[in-house]
């Protein structure tokens, strides 16, 4: 469980942009996994994919429930993430990277949930197109289309925020 906790927690943090909501959702994910573990069959796919599907479904439900209460430009929520720098980074580069991370996270939360989840699953979680197809329950063509449009939209939002890719 501990091995998957961080993965699920990262997915919840990047999707919601809120640390407190991500903690609650992470807990809810594993409660649901505990209750429905008997229904999992290895023929359905890898356990990681099944776990990601449950996480994604709860994230979508949470998004729909909190649509009116959502804060799309909340910098305070983003600052609660416990991001750890890599050992190769210097403190100055880490501060700059931290600011860029916050900027990218803010841009991510401005995407629609369909595009946001596609970009997160592909570029952050590292899932391939087939796994994303299983998680999202859509054809592979739709997966590619959403990833494409999500990346273009993310680049547009970041350009409006003054982001310049290095």
């Amino acid at each position, binding site marked *: 469980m501990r091995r998957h906790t961080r993965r699920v927690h990262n997915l919840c943090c990047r999707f919601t942009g809120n640390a407190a909501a991500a903690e609650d959702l*992470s807990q809810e994910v594993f*409660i649901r996994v505990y209750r429905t573990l008997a229904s999992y069959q290895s023929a359905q796919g890898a356990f990681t994919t099944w776990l990601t599907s449950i996480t994604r479904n709860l994230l979508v439900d949470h998004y729909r429930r909190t649509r009116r209460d959502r804060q799309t430009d909340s910098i305070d929520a983003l600052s609660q993430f416990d991001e750890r720098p890599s050992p190769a980074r210097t403190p100055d580069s880490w501060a700059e990277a931290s600011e860029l991370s916050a900027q990218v996270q803010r841009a991510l939360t401005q995407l629609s949930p369909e595009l946001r989840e596609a970009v997160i699953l592909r570029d952050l979680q590292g899932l391939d197109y087939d796994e994303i197809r299983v998680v999202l329950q859509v054809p592979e063509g739709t997966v590619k289309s959403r990833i494409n449009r999500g990346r273009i939209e993310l680049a547009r939002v970041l350009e409006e925020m003054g982001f310049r890719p290095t």
Partner: protein
Amino acid sequence: MNWNCTLTEERLSDVLEGRLAAAEASAYSAHASGCDRCTRLVAQVGGVVQRVRQLPEIYEPPFLASRIIAATRGASMQRQSAKGWFSWLPAISPMRLAMGVVTVAVSFFVVFHALGALPRRMALNPVNLYYSANRHIHLTYARGVKIVNDLHVVYMIQSRLFAEPQPNAEPTPAPDRQPEATPQQHSPDSYARPKTQAAPPAGHRSTQSAAEFAMLIVSGWPASPLDEIPRSYL
């Protein structure tokens, strides 16, 4: 194959990830070499994708795992309690139950053996148990009545309230004494006295006995040794 800007947008992910077929890749390269828009778009989106993939990993709070374990254990316990009144039965291990019963029985045996009160085989007969319990109940009641009656204070109060006249006392009452109480003022209890005897003045004697009772409370209860239970009761 002809390539255009619309195709660049539609196949942008394949362009960035190098998933174009050979013919498509050459068509794209030919188009991109003369199209600043597509070149700028590919560079911009490529930079964003690279930056997103470099986002640092978020560490979960240290209490999250504990919360999850506690929540899953609580969920399983709620499921068990929802199964019905006898949901606790499976939780009792037969081995543990047997060990507990044996331990209790051995403890009782040791205690009774130490007290010298091991029950005889005939004493375990249900009829004998009933008669024994009935006899003990009556014995306990009799002891309680005897204790109450033996209380020194009760005896004093009763003796003061219903004192018998002294053998050397004058039959006629003193001049300062209260007039005789009417028969209706007598206490209707088992200590009824013959009508020929003068009833004690209720007011003065009750006040005096109440004062003595109060003094007894202040000074403490007197020790009243209880008589031993006659062996015939046992």
